[in-house]
């Protein structure tokens, strides 16, 4: 682009012209979906042509993955050990993700509120958490296996750990950044002391807490695969590991796809919940 000296403002690009006649809602919808789907479709097409019909390709083409996913879900194609098992693995993973996440919220939320609000608790606990926080969850794997043995309890623990810090850190941040003016306003209106906790601190820090919940749940889905590689029989991480050992790469990709979709849906649920609860917040409305 050349440096032009003309005076027309740059923002008046033809597309953003407010006087453009409004397109029909249908065409507008089609346009939106086209934009949204263009990139994933391009990736699929590229994947297809890079792998299809090549005998020695280590990566199966998308069509093969689709059939494998169908077989994994409803069976009737391969009828092997993987057929019709998807729901078992999905339920196992979801229950670990939400169990570990739920426990993390149950511990991190009150802890974060206390650390944020009570100086003594902050002095007592904050340094420890600050040092423990940078340790990646994967580094806890050996220790988790010693503490909880091989199996679902280790997976549960790792998910808990993965979701714990985002919730804790964001809750502390939310509580610490409540506008001091609101405490003054509450106390001059006759709401003082511990009553401020529920009437001011909690609602005011809700946006930050929700950010923590979203991040925490996201991490829970990230960690679940590592957690289920510790020798559990079911779970999306477990089938990925098993399929890898059997060189069933199409099943590995199926596991990846299902985790992606499940993680996406659970994020959407939290986001919609947040939108309802945070209607008042300009950043969330």
């Amino acid at each position, binding site marked *: 682009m050349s440096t032009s000296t003309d005076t027309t403002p740059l923002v008046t690009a033809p597309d953003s012209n407010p006087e453009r006649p409004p397109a029909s809602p249908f065409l507008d919808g089609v346009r939106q979906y086209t934009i949204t789907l263009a990139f994933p479709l391009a990736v699929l097409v590229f994947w297809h042509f890079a792998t299809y019909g090549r005998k020695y390709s280590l990566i199966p083409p998308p069509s093969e993955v689709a059939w494998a996913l169908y077989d994994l879900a409803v069976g009737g194609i391969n009828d092997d050990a993987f057929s019709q098992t998807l729901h078992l693995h999905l339920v196992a993973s979801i229950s670990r993700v939400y169990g570990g996440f739920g426990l993390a919220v149950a511990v991190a939320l009150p802890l974060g509120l206390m650390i944020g609000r009570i100086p003594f608790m902050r002095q007592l606990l904050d340094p420890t958490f600050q040092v423990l926080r940078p340790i990646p969850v994967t580094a806890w794997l050996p220790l988790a296996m010693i503490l909880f043995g091989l199996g679902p309890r280790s997976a549960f623990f790792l998910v808990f750990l993965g979701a714990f810090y985002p919730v804790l850190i964001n809750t502390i941040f939310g509580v610490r950044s409540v506008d001091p003016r609101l405490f003054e306003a509450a106390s*001059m*209106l*006759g*709401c003082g002391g511990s009553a401020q906790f529920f009437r001011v601190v909690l609602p005011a820090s809700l946006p930050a807490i929700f950010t923590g919940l979203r991040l925490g749940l996201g991490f829970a889905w990230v960690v679940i695969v590592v957690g289920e590689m510790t020798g559990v029989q079911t779970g999306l991480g477990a089938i990925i590991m098993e399929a890898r050992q059997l060189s069933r790469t199409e099943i590995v990709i199926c596991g990846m796809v299902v985790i992606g979709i499940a993680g996406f849906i659970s994020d959407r649920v939290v986001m919609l919940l947040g939108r309802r609860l945070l209607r008042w*917040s300009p950043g969330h409305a």
Partner: protein
Amino acid sequence: MRDTMTPIVELKGVSKQFELQGERIEAVRDANLRVRKGEFVCLIGASGCGKSTLLRIVAGFEQPTRGEALMWGMPIGGPAPDRGMVFQDYGLFPWLTVRRNIGFGPAARGRPAAEVRDTVERFMSLVGLQRFAEAYPHQLSGGMKQRVAIARVLANDAELVLMDEPFGALDAMTRERLQDELLEIWERTGLSVMFVTHAIEEAIFLADRVVIMSPGPGRIDSEMPIDLPRPRDVSAPNFNDIRRELAHKLHSDLARKAA
């Protein structure tokens, strides 16, 4: 019945010092002030004259370093609903609707729900906010927000309303409207008002009495009763005379300090 001779607010030799980055700042030195019930008092002065600090001491947000701050002859121990504060930055609860912001005080003090509802309705109509009852603060204009803030302290039975440059962030038109509305409410309810401003015209338009403060250290310099009948006309010659006199007092304070 309260003794009519007892002032609603009395400051006796109030001084306030702050520690700021290891330095001792004298925000207010030896301030003496009496506010009668139903009186509208404006505190005016350049920035740093301690007018906001004085207001915050009356609110109970700050304790005087020396001297006494009394309400109805009793020492002010901390913030309480009988002294409502209206902040320049509104201080509304962003997660509550207009209705619930106004009802915050009564609800927090455990009033029955039906009573809270009636009180809220009454004060919403007093400040003309019924149409916005279910709106959140971020959806309101500055003038609307300040109406909510005023209704909020009135709904909480405040006898004394403390206003810290409440209209300073508003545009001129909105400011004039709110000044009119405030006077109307004040005349109707018999409230006492302490109003901090740095705008000379605003002080003369609103106050029964203007208290002139000067900085470095902040102190009360003089007082000036405003005897003009209401509603006051800012373009009247006698209004202008007072404006000139007050401006002169304020500037001579500054000049004396510079000398």
